[in-house]
């Protein structure tokens, strides 16, 4: 329980952050025109990830899946920014 809880808090936070950044980058002009709505989405997204973490069968699985999702999302962000 604690393991999944920590996975949701610690890995959910950067994942929610980078997903919003990716969304803003996809909107063009760094998404500046949509920044406030994106910030409003941050807490619902983080909460969804924290709740989602409890649906995993074990803490190890939660850490592996959320960790991989983070790695992929940060990679996608790096490619989006440096591939231009």
């Amino acid at each position, binding site marked *: *329980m604690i393991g*999944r809880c920590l996975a949701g808090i610690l890995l959910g*936070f*950067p994942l929610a*952050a*980078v997903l*919003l*950044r990716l969304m803003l980058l996809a909107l063009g002009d*760094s998404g*500046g*025109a*949509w*920044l*406030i*709505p994106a*910030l*409003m989405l*941050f*807490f*619902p997204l*983080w*909460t*969804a990830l*924290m*709740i989602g973490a*409890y*649906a995993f069968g074990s803490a190890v699985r939660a850490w592996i899946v959320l960790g991989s999702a983070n790695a992929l999302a*940060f990679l996608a*962000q790096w490619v989006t*920014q440096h591939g231009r």
Partner: protein
Amino acid sequence: MKAVTLRTFQTVHTWAGLIAGFALFVAFYAGALTVFHDAIATWQNPPWRSAPDAHVPLSALVDRFVTLHPKARDDFGVVLPSDGAHAAYVFWLSDQGSRYASYSQLAAPRDESDPGNLADFVYALHDSLGWPTVGLYIMGIASVLYGLALVSGVLIHLPHLVSDLFAMRVGRNLKRLWQDAHNAIGVVSLPFHIIFAVTGALFCLFTPTLAALNWTAFDGKLYGQFAQAVATAPTLPASGVQAIMQTPQALIARARQAALASDVTTFDPDYMHFVNYGDRNAVVQVRGKSLHTLATYGDVALAGADGRVLSTYVGSKHSINTGSNWAMYGLHFGTYGGTALRWLYLGLGLAGAFLFYSGNVLWIESRRKRRHLDQPRRTRVMARVTIGVCIGTCLGISGAFAAVWLSAYVDVAVGIAQRVAFYGLLCAALAYAFTRPIAQAAVHLLGATAALTALVACADLARNAATFAADFSQPAYTVLGVDLTGLALAWIFARLAIATMRRARHGDPNSVWSAHVSI
């Protein structure tokens, strides 16, 4: 959903609710009253009792300010009163920190905006338990936990959500009735609770969240982007050439004209921001409130020298960023509607407070030993803390109203008096809850809250009776409304005290709420 996952969500719901419940009870009870912030301010200082500087023209205030404080003319604000019966005041940053002054205070300004303002104190309890910064972060974390409790609560009840929504099983099983009431309030007011959880977390944790997002995913560019997103006035460098400024009244008239051309029906200015006052490039921003729109507030920026409109962010001329920023504020505080909506928000706030109180009661009831008079220690402690904090908060807020009422007759600093009354009564209620039998403490504390609330309302009605009879103006109507609401709340507390007493005497004796349990 698998049974094991459902059980996990039950645990998440219980613990998130228990940890955040007390802070959220204070937030909701004080928040419900905060919806009528301006009415409480009028109740404290009705114009027929004291209204210094209320009729000083804005131009006289600004002229005297720039003469006495020439260094501050680069950047200062003027807070406009919500009605004609109160005074406008200037706000600026001096070398010693923030300064505030109405016309007669300009030579010796204050370092607090309005020390002793009861409505501001109730608001501070709502947003930070009255504890700056640390309390704000505690409330922010409580809001995040509240979001978790909401989502997990909905997931638990999802299988029976529709069939149980209107079920109110009044019968011998009291726990079932409390559970039905808890679920019904939670589900029916869910959209509002989602709004409060999301906006509450963002308002309270804004600074650390922005810093963390900037560091994790925005490559240090977030602060710049954010400043750009919410900027509503052009930045013009000072020219160094002096110019005669338009009067504040003329600028307000121009701003209103520009605002009303942006698809809003009203525009009531509440704040003006002056940059480089007296310079040819001076910029004056007028912020105002519009009814019948979700983005309640808007800004019009004008050139100080000739009153040209430089930018308009009102109604249909809001950008996506500025519009959603103000919409978030409007949704949280219920400023987008009129009086009926404010009453709805008051009802929702009180219902929310009940949600957290009933959550604790359910936790206690689930752990009740049905065949023993003695109840487990943890449920006794939880019952004591619940009545101490929850009823103590209500008692303390009524005490703060009483302290403010009395301060008109006793020479004390009203800001200190209301704090001492609130925190003193809260601590006393907790001490009482821990030293008396639980059922007795609950009845006595509810009775004391009812009595004190009714006493303040009656005393204030008596004090103002002559004014009500002579001149029934809008402020008189507001003060009467606050007093009658106090009487209604007192009646509710009295009914709760009677119900708790009946439960203690005649209910199942094997419970912490029974008078038969003397520990």
